[in-house]
């Protein structure tokens, strides 16, 4: 992690906004929340990191990163289908990265064992839900 969690909290306290928002640290966090559970100062660190992601995206400081990109494709899928279409989303991600053969052996094994959802289901309420998601993605200002 570029800036470790307790230093991130330190920088926030000392007001170094840009340094924190532009770092890749918020995107490295897996949101496992172990730190939130064990923090001796009672800080919900995972929540802080989640909020940093939201602010850094909204403020335009966000470091270019794969996690935000993949998240975007997931929400895109939900906007269009109402659900997360696994294969379609992963293919779109790989294509956008030019990674045509990455993890091919693993992918083939998963296909063979039926561990990749091939078809995507469209929910009946996808138009209404899609419109709501489109509107909420439109203004991320906070």
């Amino acid at each position, binding site marked *: 992690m570029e800036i470790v969690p307790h230093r991130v909290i330190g920088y926030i306290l000392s007001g170094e906004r840009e340094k924190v928002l532009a770092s890749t640290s918020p995107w490295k966090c897996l*949101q496992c929340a172990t730190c*939130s559970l064990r923090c001796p100062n009672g800080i919900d660190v995972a929540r802080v990191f989640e909020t940093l992601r939201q602010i850094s995206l909204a403020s335009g400081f966000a470091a270019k990163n794969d*996690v935000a990109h993949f998240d975007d494709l997931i929400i895109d899928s939900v906007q269009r289908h109402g659900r997360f279409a*696994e294969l379609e989303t992963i293919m779109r*991600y790989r294509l956008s990265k030019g990674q045509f053969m990455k993890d091919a052996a693993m992918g083939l*094994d998963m296909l063979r064992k*039926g561990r990749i959802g091939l078809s995507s289901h469209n929910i009946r309420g996808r138009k209404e839900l899609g419109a709501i998601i489109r509107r*909420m993605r439109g203004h991320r200002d*906070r």
Partner: protein
Amino acid sequence: MITLSYFPGCSLTSSSSFYDRSLRRVLAFYEVGLRELEDWSCCGAAAAPAMRQELSDVLNARNIAIAEKSGLHLLAPCSACYARTRASALKIAGDRSTRDMVNEALSPMSVKGSLEVRNIIETFLQYVGVEKIAASVAYGIGSMRVVPYYGCLLTRIMGAPSSDDVEDPSGMDVLLDALGAVVVPWQFKTECCGAGSTATDRDRTTRLSGRIMAMAKKAGANAVVTTCPLCQLNLDLTTHARGDLAGIPVLFLTEVFELALFGSTPDSKHHLISMADIEGSVEILGGDSA
């Protein structure tokens, strides 16, 4: 006989559809009825709240609204669906501005946040009961030395209390013990598998999931048992990076139920790490209705 509202979630309709089938078979055996949420949508997992908190709450509120109309408790077997739905329901019930926001966004749907959400462990403990489970065992699975793996989101739910101990959960241990498996103590019950970073940073998922599998092996287990579809897949995928950890299959809790109740599971072929040895070691118990 009880009926629950059922939210399978995206994983159980695609990469882990065999978990959905297994769960349905086992709950049908115990006469727990499932009514799938009509036209449910994705919970947004970690992607929606990373973008905007309101988006996450609205996505969950839609499912909660559908579930509340039924008046039934909701079963969400996927840890992400369970954690997100439960946290949003509590927030909608307790915070008026969130309640107004989601109701305005989803109108004419309406949501109160009164929904009771259960994971699969809670479902077995509360609606079936340990005594009934122990009494229903027809096959001996005493050769299974299992480590129960809970992962992050079953107990560490942002904004919601856990129904189990957060550092040392035991709900699954109790169930596995009742089924006749040998529960092996270990320290990695709630470690993180790497979550959704498999697509973006596979090395990290491999490292984190590999640690968990290595610890399972060190503890002397011959199977890992989990309830989360993403945890199961990440641990199962270690077979492609860690040849040294071969031979420890990762089972869904409901598959262990199937082995103890029916002697086998028809969907074992979907495991990346073969569970053939485990299936082969199941013994018929004398006298019972096998």
